[in-house]
């Protein structure tokens, strides 16, 4: 099963490779990985999408917690959360299809960020299904290039403080 895991880490050089190295070294899967600074400049947030059975996910969370630079790990899957992905897509737009491309874009509330005589570059944000749907609908026109950000996610309506990051241990004892 797919899990979206949110990881708060010390904003230090080498942290990303500690996390990615953990995944490659232990044979865990990473489907997407996103990193950026939080409001606290000493802390970065990683949003990881991974998959595995319950036991593997439990190991992933424990192993992440074990990394010295990891401050907090939250498995968002199973809780109420919002996730979004942004996609930049350059699609062929000849005279005959320009209007149709724009109509599709409008339905998905995307934006045109660049125009050339034969193509549009579009920006669309949404959850995975929406982004996927846009790609599928635009495919017949001829997609020239796609860049996706991977998922970012946030839990709904709940304030998430900077705990010790060791909350999962108690869960493990459960």
């Amino acid at each position, binding site marked *: 099963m797919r899990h979206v895991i949110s990881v708060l880490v010390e904003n230090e050089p*080498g942290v990303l490779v500690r996390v990615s190295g953990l995944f490659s070294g232990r044979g865990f899967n990473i489907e997407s990985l996103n990193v950026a600074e939080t409001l606290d400049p000493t802390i970065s947030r990683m949003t990881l999408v991974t998959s595995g059975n319950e036991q593997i996910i439990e*190991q992933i969370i*424990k192993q992440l917690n074990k990394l010295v630079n990891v*401050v907090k790990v939250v498995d968002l899957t199973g809780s109420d959360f919002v996730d979004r992905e942004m996609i930049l897509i350059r699609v062929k737009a000849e005279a005959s299809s320009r209007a149709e491309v724009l109509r599709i874009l409008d339905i998905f509330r995307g934006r045109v960020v660049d125009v050339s005589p034969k193509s549009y570059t579009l920006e669309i944000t949404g959850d995975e299904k929406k982004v996927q749907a846009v790609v599928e609908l635009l495919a017949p026109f001829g997609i020239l290039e796609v860049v996706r950000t991977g998922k970012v996610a946030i839990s709904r309506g709940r304030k998430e403080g900077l705990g*010790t*990051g060791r909350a999962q241990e108690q869960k*493990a*004892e459960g």
Partner: protein
Amino acid sequence: MKKTGAEILFESLKHEGVDTIFGLPGGAVLTLYHALGKYAEEIRHILVRHEQGAVHAADGYARSSGKVGVCLVTSGPGGTNTVTGLATAYMDSVPLVVFTGQVPTMLIGNDAFQEADITGITRACTKHNYLVKDVKDLAMTIKQAFHLARTGRPGPVLVDLPKDVVADSTEFSYPSKLKMRSYNPTYQGHPGQIKRAAKLIAGAKKPLIYAGGGVILSNSSKELTALGQKLSIPVTTTLMGLGGFPGSHPFFLGMLGMHGSFHANMAVTHCDVLIAIGARFDDRVTGKIESFSPHSKKIHIDIDPTSISKNVPVDIPIVGDARNILKTLLKYLDEETGQDWAKKHAEWLEQIAEWKRNYNSTPPDSHCGPCIKPQFVIQKIYEITKGDVIITTEVGQNQMWAAQSFLFNKPRTLLTSGGLGTMGYGFPAAIGAQVAFPDKTVIDIAGDGSIQMNIQELATAVQYNLPVKVAILNNHCLGMVRQWQQLFYEERYDQSVFEVVPDFVKLAEAYGAVGLRATKPEEVEPVIRQALSIPKPVFMDFLIDQNECVYPMVPAGAALTEMLLV
């Protein structure tokens, strides 16, 4: 007061209580070695002959004494030579701090002479590592490194020191407080969980304790012994746990697993409650996972949450320090008044005794043939020393025979590379243990393959007059490899038999040590006695039977009950 980075390093080491370091100088650490001269009275430097030897020696020092082992090596190859030592210590949770030199910060990334990205290289074999980029961060980094190495699940930490950083100066005061928001090991076990465990143990008919290296690391040998003793619970240990429970105690079953005793493997398969303490259900212990202890409820005490339910699902996990948890557990079990534990477990103990009678790996005596049996050598060492020694081992048959034939009655008396299985570990580790305990007898039980992997350290032993004894069980081959080839690879001994083996007696003499040889069983005892009487490093070359295998043996991937017995 202003100090240079080099001075800050050694001042900080003093604050951490370090009085001994193992190392080898080189270009990038010359500033450090120059400063070390000033601290010669307070910090003893043991000059090794290869950086791998430095790390294993620091590891042996740490395992035998419980203190943090410290190394100082140069950049590039100095650092890469520590990798095997770090991986060895990481797998066995040994507290080390290794300082490596690094090229000046402005050259980092330029492929400078003797540059290696050592923090990158060692990321997966250290608990944590640091590259210090500013002399102002040095003291706090060292403080954190020692804290990480010795707390929680201990492990090696590497600190990379660029040449300009240690030459630079800053105000120095050693930080008294440490702030690490992202590192908080759990020491106290969850009381509710411990209570549940006590209840389960109280209701058990066939309980078994399975103890590992965590018992030794947490110094909970006393509490473990009390638990086994008080409740009449039999105890088996892993290789790393040997010495955690007295080896000559009637409730001790020996080691379990691939080369475990018959009755230990039978007991673990048939017990109804398995109490795992500071052990991690390694594949060499469990054999085929599906048939591992299939009828038992499992309690697992471990300080590392990742060890829990990693290989084998457990019923009652307890995260924390084994010693704290065992103390609380004993308290709860004391409340179980009216239990006659001895009577309750008598039937179970009798069953185990019967298994033991059914298959008793009778020690081969000296008259079984013209060849020396390796087990006989180890038993003789035990007899003559009365077990009052620190034993180190190499890896392979020598290691398993030592584990099976020697009775380890006290913790920290067996130093062996259990997790990584590093040949070449035992000799430098023995040197480290001898540095920690100059008055103790330290014996490395070696094979002729393993001893050649760090034999250069004989010069170190001679230089510091460390009277380490090395018992080479010499079968002119890589014995364990040969054993697997004999049993599982059509008896084709591809590349496992040595056509050339050095004359270890002459070799010892060439280094200024002493070499002795035994070729017949009756020479074994005199050689051991003579070696022990010589206050110098001694190589004992025992020419043993090449055909001797380690039994019992559970083939890789088989169930623990599928033991090859002869």
